[in-house]
């Protein structure tokens, strides 16, 4: 066997995903729809949060959601109660959503008829961090029941997200959750990250977040600049 030689190449391994994500982002921008994705560990309250958000936004905005799940359609059924259009993406054994799945799920949708599109990722704090879905804003959710050190355990996902949401605050006292510690941990792995705290059950803190979303939609529509490009 002859001596091997070294040839230089520069190829991003996730280029295929990134190319599709860029195309999606351009489509979203052209349609004027603000796209929000959600990542978190399983059971942190993504679906409850999304149901609350869809229900409260719906009187004033045209909203829809894509929901990633390994096997069941339970989340889509729950979200359909909000009466917003919801589509399930069943990933099978795949632990994360990829841009191509979002593209396929959106086939036949008229994005111009939407103000907000939500994409709920598979419950997983590791794998989704590598994949850009073309979203304007990526939310990472942690519930008070998970403990304050989640950000320190999963710094990569916090660095791929734009905003953190602390959920289930109605249970804070029961689990002796320390907001100060959680906030400090988030700031340690992602200095300057904006954090909302809310309870999807009682509604506490939800309005503040919805107001933030409305502002971001206005900014998107009144500016030609990309609102906030997530680049995991």
């Amino acid at each position: 066997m002859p001596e091997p030689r070294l040839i230089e190449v520069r190829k991003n391994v996730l280029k295929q995903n990134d190319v599709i994500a860029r195309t999606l982002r351009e489509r979203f921008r052209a349609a004027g729809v603000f796209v929000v994705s959600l990542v978190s560990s399983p059971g942190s309250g993504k679906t409850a949060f999304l149901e609350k958000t869809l229900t409260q936004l719906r009187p004033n905005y045209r909203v829809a959601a894509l929901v990633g799940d390994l096997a069941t359609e339970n989340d889509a059924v729950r979200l359909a109660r909000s009466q917003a259009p919801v589509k399930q993406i069943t990933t099978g054994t795949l632990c994360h959503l990829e841009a191509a799945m979002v593209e396929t799920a959106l086939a036949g949708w008229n994005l111009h008829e939407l103000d907000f599109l939500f994409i709920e990722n598979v419950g997983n704090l590791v794998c989704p961090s590598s994949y850009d879905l073309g979203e304007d804003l990526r939310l990472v959710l942690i519930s008070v029941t998970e403990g304050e050190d989640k950000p320190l355990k999963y710094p990569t996902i916090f660095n791929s997200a734009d905003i953190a949401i602390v959920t289930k605050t109605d249970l804070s006292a029961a689990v002796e959750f320390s907001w100060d510690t959680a906030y400090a941990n988030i700031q340690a792995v992602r200095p300057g990250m904006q954090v909302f705290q809310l309870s999807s059950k009682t509604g506490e803190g939800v309005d503040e977040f919805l107001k933030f979303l409305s502002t971001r939609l206005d900014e998107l529509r009144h500016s030609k600049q990309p609102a906030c490009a997530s680049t995991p």
Partner: protein
Amino acid sequence: MHELSIAMSIVELAEEEAERRGVQITAVHLKLGALSGVVKDALLSCYEMACEGTVLQGSRLLIEDIPIVIYCPACRAERPLSSIQLFCCPDCGTPSSEIKQGKELEVVALEVVSETASENTASENHECPNPA
């Protein structure tokens, strides 16, 4: 655990290069950032699996770990992080989330041997070489 799909993307990408350049690949050099979200050991074992039955079978994956580097606005300089749990300047302590390096997931080089010099037909080019 998304390392298998990452490994398959690497193999796919390398297969394309091998075909385009008419070479046999013996090793793939990869830059892997600490913030790429990919676990090195898992990727290495998945790579072997992903290579099976392809022209890459028997090739090695050589991973260069890329540490996280941030830009410190106070020092006006790039600084390596001392811990992935603390995004602040190791010199002056100023927090920063301006990441300059550490998200890489990039094939940077290939070790290759040319296929037989007498190769003329495409079919020969596509022969699956026996791993040494």
